[in-house]
């Protein structure tokens, strides 16, 4: 292909955005020539050009998508530690290798961070110079008309009786009234509209940078903890009060926001009929809370999708269950009142748990068993629960005495009982208020009733607001960038030598990025028609030129 200087001029005139020059073949060639590795500085410059090029951005986007895939296929430590452990059991040789490569913590791995850091740098290196260029372009005058308007994708020409100056004046006024930015040179008019497209594009990319920055702030200054609270019990926000706490690197966990709350009651309602009988309808944790110790206590209902906010921290309801209440009397007549959370095992809230009584005399006592909210005996006479609501609460328990094994320093789960040094005294199924009398005068166990418990997740995320604002800008920028059309229109009026004196040839040319939105056809035709009203084509003979393909 032979490129004349005129072609290149026209190509430049046709460029409607500040996209980096290397985005087209023209620039790539220039760039490629710019890699003299003779000096270090030149190599650095060259690397910078490559990193901030459109092609690199494209490749990095791909790599980001690709890097995220294993995170959805392999179990992840953060979300499902249990399944990671299972994976180790099923693939004993593969698992350690995957672990070494960060496969169980993809989104915290060095290579994932590497890709998005490169993208971040590429984005900054690309967008910031583009913003500067765009600011300049917005103040610049619309570019002068290419030599031959008839070669533009949209064009029209006709001969009129008006003189060239009048044509240019009318064209100027017309384009002005259509809110184009217009520049006149002699009897040529250049007009331009739609800078908002590029503005939107830059807004989008800059907001993306802000989102990434906001996420980084959240990671450094945020924390998340979970805590289980029984009805009538309280929680106050200190690090030790949490069952588990994950804090960002820059959080001082001794200075958590000083709020506290008490769980007054927990209610859940369930579907009573239909194909999804037993599915939960609603959850409600009624709490009384104080933002700090001196503040007046207030009531609040924490429900799903309705967290409690206090001093930058949000309290979410994330789980619930039952805590059966036992009254245990030991052989010496000591009475223990124990309300112990049991863990639900499924949709009918059959819950399993353990009560440990290290202070019972003469031997320690332990109870292991199930809580059944709606107890029924199945066909084999085995007690099961058929519904998650406490319609007919009962417990099935086994009572042990002996050594709970708490004194050897080995941490033990509160939900399991090590019976290796204990003997089973008795088992029973107890309804509300029923008592099991242990054999040989060793005391008794009464199932008094139950409380409910709820688990709360408490988190603070200081980058959140910034991220939200930035994503709003992102969508806005995207809409502008994809819906607004950048277009240029030129009008040139030239006295016509071949005609009787006083006649003028009017040429109009238009240019847009046609793939953005349709409609420039109509706009251009409308402009031409409007101009023809003011400077009408001469009627006596057909002077219109039709472009033939």
């Amino acid at each position: 292909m032979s490129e004349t200087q005129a072609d290149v001029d026209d190509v430049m005139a046709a460029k409607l955005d500040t996209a980096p020059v290397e985005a087209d073949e023209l620039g790539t060639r220039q760039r490629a020539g710019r890699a003299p590795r003779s000096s270090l500085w030149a190599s650095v410059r060259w690397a910078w050009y490559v990193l901030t090029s459109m092609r690199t951005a494209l490749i990095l986007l791909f790599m980001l998508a690709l890097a995220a895939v294993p995170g959805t296929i392999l179990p992840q430590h953060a979300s499902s530690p249990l399944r990671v452990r299972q994976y180790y059991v099923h693939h004993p040789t593969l698992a350690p290798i995957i672990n070494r490569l960060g496969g169980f913590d993809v989104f915290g791995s060095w290579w994932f961070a590497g890709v998005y850091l490169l993208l971040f740098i590429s984005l900054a290196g690309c967008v910031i110079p583009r913003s500067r260029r765009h600011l300049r372009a917005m103040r610049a005058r619309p570019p002068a008309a290419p030599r031959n308007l008839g070669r533009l994708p949209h064009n029209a020409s006709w001969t009129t009786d008006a003189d060239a100056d009048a044509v240019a004046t009318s064209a100027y006024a017309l384009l002005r009234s259509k809110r184009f930015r217009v520049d006149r040179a002699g009897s040529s008019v250049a007009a331009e509209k739609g800078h908002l497209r590029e503005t939107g594009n830059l807004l989008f990319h800059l907001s993306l940078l802000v989102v990434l920055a906001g996420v980084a702030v959240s990671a450094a200054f945020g924390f998340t903890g979970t805590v289980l609270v029984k009805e009538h019990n309280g929680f106050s926000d200190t690090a030790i009060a949490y069952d588990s706490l994950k804090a960002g690197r820059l959080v001082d966990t001794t200075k958590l926001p000083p709020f506290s709350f008490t769980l007054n009651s927990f209610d859940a309602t369930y579907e009573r009929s239909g194909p999804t009988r037993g599915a939960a309808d609603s959850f409600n944790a009624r709490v009384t809370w104080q933002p700090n110790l001196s503040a007046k206590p207030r009531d609040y209902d924490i429900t799903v999708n309705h967290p409690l906010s206090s001093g930058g921290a949000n309290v979410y309801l994330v789980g619930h269950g039952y805590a059966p209440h036992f009254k245990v009397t030991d052989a010496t007549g000591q009475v223990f009142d124990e309300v112990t959370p049991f863990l639900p095992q499924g949709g009918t809230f059959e819950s399993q748990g353990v009560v440990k009584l290290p202070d019972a005399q003469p031997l320690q006592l332990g109870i292991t068993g199930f809580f059944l909210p709606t107890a029924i005996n199945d066909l084999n006479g085995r007690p099961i629960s058929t519904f998650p609501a406490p319609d007919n609460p009962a417990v099935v328990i086994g009572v042990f005495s002996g050594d709970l094994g708490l004194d050897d320093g080995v941490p033990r789960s509160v939900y399991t009982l090590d019976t290796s040094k204990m003997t089973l005294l008795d088992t029973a199924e107890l309804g509300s208020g029923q008592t099991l009398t242990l054999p040989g005068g060793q005391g008794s166990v009464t199932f008094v009733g139950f409380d409910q418990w709820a688990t709360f997740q408490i988190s603070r995320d200081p980058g959140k607001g910034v991220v939200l604002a930035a994503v709003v800008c992102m969508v806005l920028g995207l809409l502008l960038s994809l819906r607004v059309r950048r277009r240029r229109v030129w009008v040139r009026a030239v006295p016509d030598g071949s005609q009787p004196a006083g006649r003028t040839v009017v040429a109009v040319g238009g240019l847009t990025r046609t793939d953005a939105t349709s409609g420039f056809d109509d706009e251009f035709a409308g402009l031409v028609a409007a101009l023809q009203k003011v400077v009408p084509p001469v009627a006596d003979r057909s002077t219109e030129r039709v472009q033939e393909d």
Partner: protein
Amino acid sequence: MGVDVGLARLSNDLIVGGIAAYSVAFLGYAIDAAFGNHVAAAASQPAAAVDVRQPALVGVTAHDGDQSRGAGWTSPASDSRPPGVRLARTNAAARGVGGFLSARTGRFAVAITVVGWLLHLGAVVTRGLSVHRLPWGNMYEFTLAFTLTVVTAFLVIMMRQPARYLGVFVMTPVVLALGIAVLVLYVAPAPLVPALHSFWLAIHVTAAILASGVFTVATAATVMFLIADRYAVAMASGKPVRFSALARIMPAPDVLDRTAYRAYAFAFPVWTFAVIAGAIWAEYAWGHYWQWDPKETWAFITWVIYAGYLHARATAGWRGRKAAYVAMLGFTSIVFNFFIVNIFITGVHSYAGV
């Protein structure tokens, strides 16, 4: 609140009617494509429209230049020829018995599509009324709503530009998806689990459905683009092509490319918004706006791939076919997210009773 069984049953009947109508429409589009000259059908309208609206413009060539290939408009006359130019030559040749038959069949297919769309809309509305909520709470309902947006997008595009040629490629996924919905994914109507009672969830899912639907129509155009482009390239080099019969009935590649791009450019911001709305909902529900749950990760992957597509169109050496492949990858990711992730990969997203 209970379920209105009568309305639910009506919804089931309506959707069967809708599938039947779409199947007939599919056949109509296929006959139209096989016997007609689509290039002619596709382009005759705008030329006429310009003439009618702009009588003063005789002699003005409102010529659509195309910068999607190469930098700028190096030679407007070469590959950006508007279809209107070609049709002047092909119209007469096409005007045989087959052409006559196909034009009628084509119009009939559009009419039947509208009938199917009304039944389909009725099915979605009655399903929603039967459970007193937005009817996109499980995979069955999601598929119904999603295919409805596919057909809606197709009809809207046809209202704005001649696009009947997309019919076969749009109706295929619609009929397939609805078939799978009715035969495999069906669940009796039921209220939602509490986690799904949320304004932001409604917004999130609605936007996701809308975007997926438009992405699907765009993908249909992209598939056609790839076929038509291969044919055009082979034609230019004089080589024989397989499936040339199929390729012959396609409109010009750049018409398809542009139709596809416009659909992607509409769907991408909607998808972006859907992902953001999902994050806002997650913040309310779980206390984390982003936690790399498999479903949200795949939504993110889809988003990144389509951003890649938009970049590819602006990158030298990536325009045209390569960008189209990127877009196809994006659609694969949507389908993967819907079928594979929903069914096989466990996460916090619950679709009750898949």
